[in-house]
């Protein structure tokens, strides 16, 4: 269980994030946690609740709100992903997502940098004693607010992995190479954006028109920990439907689950033109901020507390 100081810091972090987005005219929204339809993603297994899904992300509802006329929205909410349990994973965790129209993934990277700097500034201001007494926290604050760096996935593989990204994809060892060789090198000096993912690894992202082999997607890393995943939204409903058909097939084959096509989501997607959105793990941010070994140490109750 999180101690009293931890609870105070956790509550403050939520407050800082809300202040940050309110000051930038983002509308805070809340959408149903339990839904009859979710986005089909073959590497994410949902948890069921009385015949419906617990959301794996608020993405579907938030994009529909954009289609309904919202300009800039954010949400802080619990998400659920079955069997994801480890140092950096909990089956239930808190996600921050924000979406904006007339934007692309570059705008989101700027948002991330500003958000981190804002949070660090507010934290240092509100909890000076924590920074003074704990060198690891002081160092974490320095890292989080350092200037951000970026590199494409292809460059990162050339630099850190024994194979190129094309070879890794072809041999189906992309994740293995990423986890083993690339991720540990990312974000040692400050926030790090790994950008331009191979298009086949970005089911909901827009492909770069000038470089069709990559999607306008990035992951934010700090100290080797993945903090956020953002992209320019794919708004071509036909293309999105084709990608979902593939995902649904893979889910049927590998998990034996039937997932329905999110028809109304696809209908709304066609109303969007030019939008970007991002999912940001708040528990992980708190873990890095407080220099804790695992995400289990920064939530009020973790599985071992029951």
């Amino acid at each position, binding site marked *: 269980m999180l101690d009293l100081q931890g609870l105070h810091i956790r509550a403050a972090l939520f407050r800082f994030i809300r202040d940050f987005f309110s000051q930038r005219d983002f509308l805070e929204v809340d959408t149903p946690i339990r839904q009859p339809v979710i986005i089909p993603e073959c590497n994410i297994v949902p948890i069921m609740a009385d015949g419906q899904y617990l959301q794996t992300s608020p993405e579907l509802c938030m994009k529909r709100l954009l289609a309904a006329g919202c300009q800039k929205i954010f949400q802080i909410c619990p998400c659920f992903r079955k069997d994801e349990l480890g140092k950096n994973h909990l089956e239930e965790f808190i996600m921050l997502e924000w979406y904006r129209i007339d934007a692309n993934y570059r705008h989101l990277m700027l948002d991330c940098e500003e958000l981190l700097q804002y949070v660090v500034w507010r934290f240092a201001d509100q909890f000076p004693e924590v920074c003074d007494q704990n060198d690891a926290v002081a160092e974490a604050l320095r890292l989080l607010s350092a200037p951000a760096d970026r590199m494409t996935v292809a460059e990162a593989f050339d630099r850190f992995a024994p194979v190129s990204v094309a070879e890794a994809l072809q041999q189906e060892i992309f*994740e293995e190479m*990423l*986890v083993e060789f690339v991720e540990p090198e990312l974000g040692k000096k400050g926030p790090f954006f790994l950008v331009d993912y191979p298009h086949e690894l970005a089911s909901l992202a827009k492909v770069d028109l000038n470089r069709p082999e990559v999607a306008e997607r990035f992951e934010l890393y700090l100290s080797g920990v*993945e903090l956020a*995943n953002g992209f320019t939204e794919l708004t071509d409903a036909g293309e999105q439907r084709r990608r979902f058909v593939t995902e649904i097939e893979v889910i049927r084959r590998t998990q034996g689950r039937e997932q329905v096509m999110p028809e109304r989501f696809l209908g709304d997607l066609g109303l969007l033109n030019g939008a970007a959105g991002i999912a940001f793990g708040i528990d992980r941010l708190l873990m890095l901020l407080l220099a804790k070994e695992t995400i289990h140490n920064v939530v009020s109750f973790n599985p071992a507390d029951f």
Partner: protein
Amino acid sequence: MFSASDLRKGLKLQIDGSPYIITEFEFSKPGKGQALYRCRMRNMITGNQFSKTYRSGDKFEKANLEERKMQYLYHQDDEYHFMDTENYEQLFITAEQLGDNINFLMDNMELEVLFFDDRPIDVSLPIFVNLTVTQADPWAKGDTSGTDTKPVTVETGYQLQVPPFVDEGDKIQIDTRTGEYVTRVKE
């Protein structure tokens, strides 16, 4: 059968006919990709270690392991005989299989024996055992050589370093994990 999501530190599996224990474990799932289960495994018989990364669909066999309470009876050459304290069945384990454990076995000592497919592969000794010193050089008072330990032999034939005040006939406590002297025990 275990699936990949069952993997965790301390889990025992059977791989290629041998029992393995997971000594280090990490779950990773980079950016909406495949879940990866990174394991460091130790062969419970040979002690050999290896690292391997598994994926969601991978399946694993349970290791057929059983722990039984046994009593040490005696040894004849390299064969160490034990008796199951529940069904009085007797069996022997070779000195090679026992390794350093033979240094701390005393008649009638009770311990846990681990079986893999009905083959004994390991014994769990108590952490501390009390053994009698059978041979020690007397403590030469005024010895200024500067050494603060001396070698002694205990009843099992095991030799170790102890403080100079330990005499022949003393009972001493030994940590079976390190094989080191802990303290002198009063009768």
